């Protein structure tokens, strides 16, 4: 598989690097010593149940939270770094758009926030999520799926080389979900590094690599087929449970 070969290619500078990342909230270790390197141009799935630390891990990687220990690097820049944020796209778990503003106003606002002056880039982002003809619609009146699409467009408006998508397909209908993944794949093929968090196992097969997250730790990492084979099962959910059981033992 071409992607797998490229991801595994030695010597390529990692797009994302975590080294001994720890984040504690009081006595809770939300992220507990996570280290990995992700090569550029691939789709990486952070898979784990709710509360396993996926969102906190993304917040550490994007510099929105300061680690208790360890460090994160994006494209060679140690996070947190304000300048590095111009090269990162982040779609939050909530829509994170302004409901009183129209689609066009929301996209223009985030374009300005990212310093994008190219009107073509903004239109392209809306076109990618099929909202180009809804520029004047007020965001609050859109359906849940349309709001997620707008949220995605706002995360991609500056054509970032690294994108974090926190549960991007929650509340999205199956047809739109397919469109989303098709688009993610297209971006990855152009060299974008995409990290997708999800607790839905049936989406995992669309990723190049999976990182199983449980109790703040990465308990397994590999291509979906490899993880299935290592766990001796054809079902990713079963594979996750097998690895989780081994980690707890």
């Amino acid at each position, binding site marked *: 598989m071409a992607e797998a070969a490229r991801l595994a290619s030695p010597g390529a500078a990692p797009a994302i690097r975590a080294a001994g990342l720890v984040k504690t909230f009081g006595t809770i270790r939300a992220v507990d010593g996570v280290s990995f390197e992700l090569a550029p141009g691939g789709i990486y799935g952070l898979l784990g149940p709710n509360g396993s630390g996926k969102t906190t891990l993304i917040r550490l990687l*994007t*510099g*929105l*939270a*300061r680690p208790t220990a360890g460090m994160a690097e994006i494209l060679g820049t*140690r996070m*947190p*770094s*304000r*300048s590095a*944020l*111009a090269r*990162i796209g*982040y779609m*939050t*778990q*909530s*829509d*994170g*758009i*302004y*409901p*009183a*503003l129209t689609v066009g*106003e929301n996209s*223009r*606002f*985030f374009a*300005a*926030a*990212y*310093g994008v002056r190219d009107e073509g880039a903004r239109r392209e982002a809306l076109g990618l999520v099929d909202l180009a003809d809804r520029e004047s619609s*007020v965001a609050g009146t859109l359906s849940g799926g349309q709001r997620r699409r707008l949220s995605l467009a*706002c995360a991609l408006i500056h054509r970032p080389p690294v994108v974090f998508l926190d549960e991007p397909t929650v509340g999205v209908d199956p047809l739109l979900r397919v469109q989303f993944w098709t688009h993610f794949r297209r971006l990855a093929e152009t060299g974008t590094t995409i990290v997708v968090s999800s607790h839905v196992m049936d989406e995992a097969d669309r990723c190049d690599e999976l990182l199983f997250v449980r109790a703040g730790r990465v308990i397994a990492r590999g291509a979906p087929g490899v993880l299935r084979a290592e766990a001796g099962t054809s079902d990713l959910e079963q594979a996750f449970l097998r690895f989780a059981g081994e980690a707890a033992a």
Partner: protein
Amino acid sequence: MSGRRIVALFRRVVQEIRRDRPSLALLFVAPILITGLLTFILREGQAPTVHAVLVNDAGPAGAAFAGALGPTLEAAGGSLRTVTDEATARAAVADGSADLAVVLPADLVSSGRPTVTVITEGLDPSGEGGQLGSLQKALLAAASAGSGRQPPAVQHVTVYGTPSSDPMANFAPAMVAFFAYFFVYLLTGVSFLRERTGGTLERLMATPVARGEVVLGYTLGFALFATLQVALLMTWVLGTVRVGALGPLPAFSIGLGIAVGGNPLMAFLVVLLLAVGAVSLGIFLSTFARTELQIIQFIPVVLVPQFLLSGVLFPVSSLPSVIQPFVSFMPLSYAVDGLRQVFVRGADLGVGALQVDLGVLVLVAAFFATVASWTIRREVA
């Protein structure tokens, strides 16, 4: 700092508020209704009883006038007693044994239209305004009773402070300041809480936007609405448009027509500085709120004490001495004082007291802008 990003934030705030009709009503209609109602209550309320002392420098003519004035006041439940000189009269007013003093001049009958001097304490402008109104009615009645003499003009002086014949003249500056402060705080607090809880702040912090840019963008956005609100409120408070009788409809006037001694633009500057501080206060306090109700719950803690202790209702000098030191920590007290300096005393930038008020308001705005900026968390090196 990026001007383009600040403009984008400013524009977004404006776009949001523009579509938020209840907030627009809160900003622009509520203050008009409330100041209108207050003016009505203060100006048209029950005439209070007046216990007066009289200094007669006009000899027999003055005694005759006093003879007419005394029964008129007594008929309304008040009283009139004569004292020897103005110093005694002032002392009586100062110690509260009389509501006011009337000084009849030596030329009470010789000049064209006599002028009597009325001395009030000066600490309760609204209450004294009512008493002055009652006295003027009594003077008119006394003048008519005294063989149809022309009613005397009244020169109002106070033992403390500067007098005003209109209770609203002292009250209006305080109300203008309070409404600007209250509504701007409320709108900013709720709006920024939505940013925090709606996920947009998290997302905004994942862009290269700096915290200072967010505070500045918000301040510009809400300052625009504060400017419009203050402009509307000032026009309403200061202006008067008279509408003549139209068929069965009697003549009426729109606007409160309160006289302003100084430059209205100076008053505008005072309120604007206060409003800018209120934006940052709203952002700061939204850190401690989880729901919009909690923003409202800060009102009794943060705004009501300022309302009570900043001279809006009660003169600062009449407050218990234990409380008075706290007044210095209330931003609203500087705006109220600054506006009264402009409205009542006609102060300009050369007046030291106004300079202090403006200086403190600038410092307060800068302080809360810095604190608000700290509360917008992004762990950026």
